[in-house]
């Protein structure tokens, strides 16, 4: 027996959540040829088919591109601090955090969340990330196709992978979806919304394996200084698009904004591909050019993070290659390492 929901039932569920004040995000056709995850104003904005995957990622929901950590207001001799997330008094831990729902995430996006959990809870518990994460439910739509830059199967995932999802949707081909709830959050969301059926949903078989991550790891571990990096990174322009559209890249910068910018300390995304990322106050820069910056990105994904947390810092979504204006990204570099 399986549980199913019609597409109109799914859109109704989205409409109900929006009406209840939940921030609902999902794939949206932003303009011709561009699909992005975005906050949905109406259930009709939700795009469910006809594309491989959005060009950005769902990390935005738990790790926004700009996040206020705290605000301050100066009143006479007093300085009042406010919580950046809830706008409430800094000491009020019970202030409600806005509920979020991500619909029709891709498996390679959902799988990034447990990977980010490690980062934001390793030596320091990042309460901003954790509070948003706890308030977020992720409903993943298994892929019905894959693109030329997808390589989930090379890093241990596949178009029906459940990792990081609270519930999974599988297309039935007749405009409805099989629903498989994975966590309590998922069950609560679909409770009473599905019908019993004997139909079983389907997913794409996924791309063939494109490289072996162990080979990549062995190579980066042994070739810190190697002409490979300067040869390969010559075309990198250091734009950071790879990191900013990646579901697992998580580096950030912290900025203090004065009165004209709203009196706040906030964080914004940062990227290891930027010269400023490693610039010292003295003017020295230990990573002096794109070759060492490209090496860093691959090293972090295939060796540093795996050594610490036992898995690869990449879900094979292909966004870094798909969006790189110069066609680089993990897929290009890793295949070059593996196949020469």
């Amino acid at each position, binding site marked *: 027996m399986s549980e199913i929901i019609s597409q109109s039932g799914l859109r109704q569920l989205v409409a109900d959540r929006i009406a209840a004040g939940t921030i609902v995000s999902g794939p949206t056709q932003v*303009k011709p040829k561009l699909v*992005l995850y975005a906050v949905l104003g109406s259930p009709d904005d939700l795009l469910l088919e006809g594309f491989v995957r959005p*060009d950005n990622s769902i990390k935005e929901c738990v790790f926004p591109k700009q996040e206020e950590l705290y605000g301050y207001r100066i009143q006479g001799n007093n300085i009042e601090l406010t919580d950046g997330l809830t706008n409430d008094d800094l000491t009020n831990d019970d202030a409600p955090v806005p509920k979020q729902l991500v619909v029709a995430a891709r498996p390679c996006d959902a799988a990034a969340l447990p990977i980010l959990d490690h980062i934001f809870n390793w030596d320091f518990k990042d309460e901003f990330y954790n509070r948003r994460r706890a308030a977020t439910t992720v409903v993943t739509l298994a892929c019905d196709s894959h693109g030329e830059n997808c390589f989930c199967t090379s890093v241990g995932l596949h178009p029906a992978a459940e990792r990081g999802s609270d519930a999974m949707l599988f297309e039935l081909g007749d405009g409805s979806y099989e629903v498989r709830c994975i966590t309590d959050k998922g069950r609560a969301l679909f409770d009473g919304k599905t019908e019993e059926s004997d139909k079983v949903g389907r997913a794409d078989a996924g791309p063939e394996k494109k490289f072996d991550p162990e080979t990549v790891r062995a190579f980066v571990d042994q070739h810190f200084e190697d002409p490979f990096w300067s040869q390969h990174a010559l075309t990198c322009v250091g*734009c950071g698009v790879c990191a900013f559209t990646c579901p697992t890249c998580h580096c950030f910068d912290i*900025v203090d904004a004065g009165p004209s*910018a709203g009196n706040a300390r906030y964080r*914004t995304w940062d990227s290891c591909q930027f010269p400023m990322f490693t610039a010292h106050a003295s003017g020295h820069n230990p990573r002096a050019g794109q070759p060492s910056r490209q090496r860093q990105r691959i090293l972090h994904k295939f060796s540093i993070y795996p050594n610490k947390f036992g898995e690869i810092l990449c879900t094979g979504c292909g966004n870094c290659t798909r969006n790189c*204006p110069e066609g*680089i990204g993990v897929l290009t570099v890793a295949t070059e390492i593996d196949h020469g």
Partner: protein
Amino acid sequence: MSDDSTRDGTMTENKGFEPKIVAYVCNWCTYLGADLAGTTRLEYPPNVRIIRLPCTGRIDFNLIVKGFEIGADAVLVSGCHPGDCHYTAGNYHARRRWILFRELLDTLGFDLRRIHFTWISAAEGKKWQQVITEMTEQTRQLGPYTDLYANGSAQDSANDLPSGPPTPFEFKTLPAEGALRESCRKLLADGTVKVVIGYGQRGPAILTRAEDAGRLVWNNRCVSNLTTYLKRKEIKALGKPAVVVKPCDEKSLVVLEKESQLDRKNIHVIGMACEGVGEPKCTFCTARTPRFADETLGEAAGPASLADPPPNRFAALMAMAPAERMAFWAKQFDRCVKCYACRQVCPMCYCERCIADKNRPIAIDPAPSAKGNFAWQIARAFHLAARCVGCGECSRACPAGIDLALLNIALHKAAQVNFGYDAGVDPAAEPVVGSYALQDKEDFIG
């Protein structure tokens, strides 16, 4: 975080709306004119805050915008009359930039009725009194500037511009590919050049060995403008380059040479005749055959006449009311992630340290917020005014699909209309920015 928190104070209970005006004035004329108004006891509304700068030529344009951000309802820029500049020609340079800057602000949907330019000399205390009185009254009528960066109804996609049907893409290898490989092989083999910057299977290819020439491709996916690599240190270090250019990319070489950024004699330019690579810009392109290349490969017919020309997005944008235009941009910029890919791919963005990366103190708000995004795009577009060659790389690279080219088009048009200048077309033409003419237009200066 409220982006316009300081604006709340402009409403006082008893008097109703009192406009705040910021005046950027030069030290030598207008500041003394304002001083004279004071010493001769001329009365004028107290709504103006004066910021004194050495010369109108030194007024950074982000300051005008910043004035609005911190709560001004109108901004005045004023300096010495033409011919009176303490530094000889600062105000002539300023005038030229104001002409371009107003077009940019107009395109972004700023309310131009709130931006005033004037010349006031040290002897014109009366004129200062009159200008401030009139401006205050006019701004009072306009009311507080609440449209600044307002995104209207953010979810409404009806504001998006018409884009026409998508052009079907059919991958084509072009006939000159073989000749290109052969030519590059020779250049590397006989040592004419040390490095070839060309197109490869997955993107740009940078080759240093003759035997790799077979990796080069020439097809209708060769979209990017490779001249951007000429500025990169890692590539300069390799020695004399050959670069593969399309007729549109070639224009950037003309500008870069004019700006002393490259030594044309030390670059071998391989021009590819081109019938279009399927980009929007190709439908309007009239170049087709390179004009300044050291060698030209392939043949291209002249531009095909378009039975069904794509909708003119720029005209559609300018047909909107200013507030609607601002909402359009606010909505587009809302997707910006501040990756700066638009800058990194641009062949004309070659500053060693971009103003956006200056952080001691911060010059451009680094946040991907409405304020930070407008500040960045104003800086980017204006620094490219009358320099951008329209290659479209910025729009192509933007992961957020922001129509950045529209801003460049606005400034390109302004340079054409006001100065008859087309960046990258005529190597002998004098650049617009950095020069001036006594007869530059002044009809907008009070």
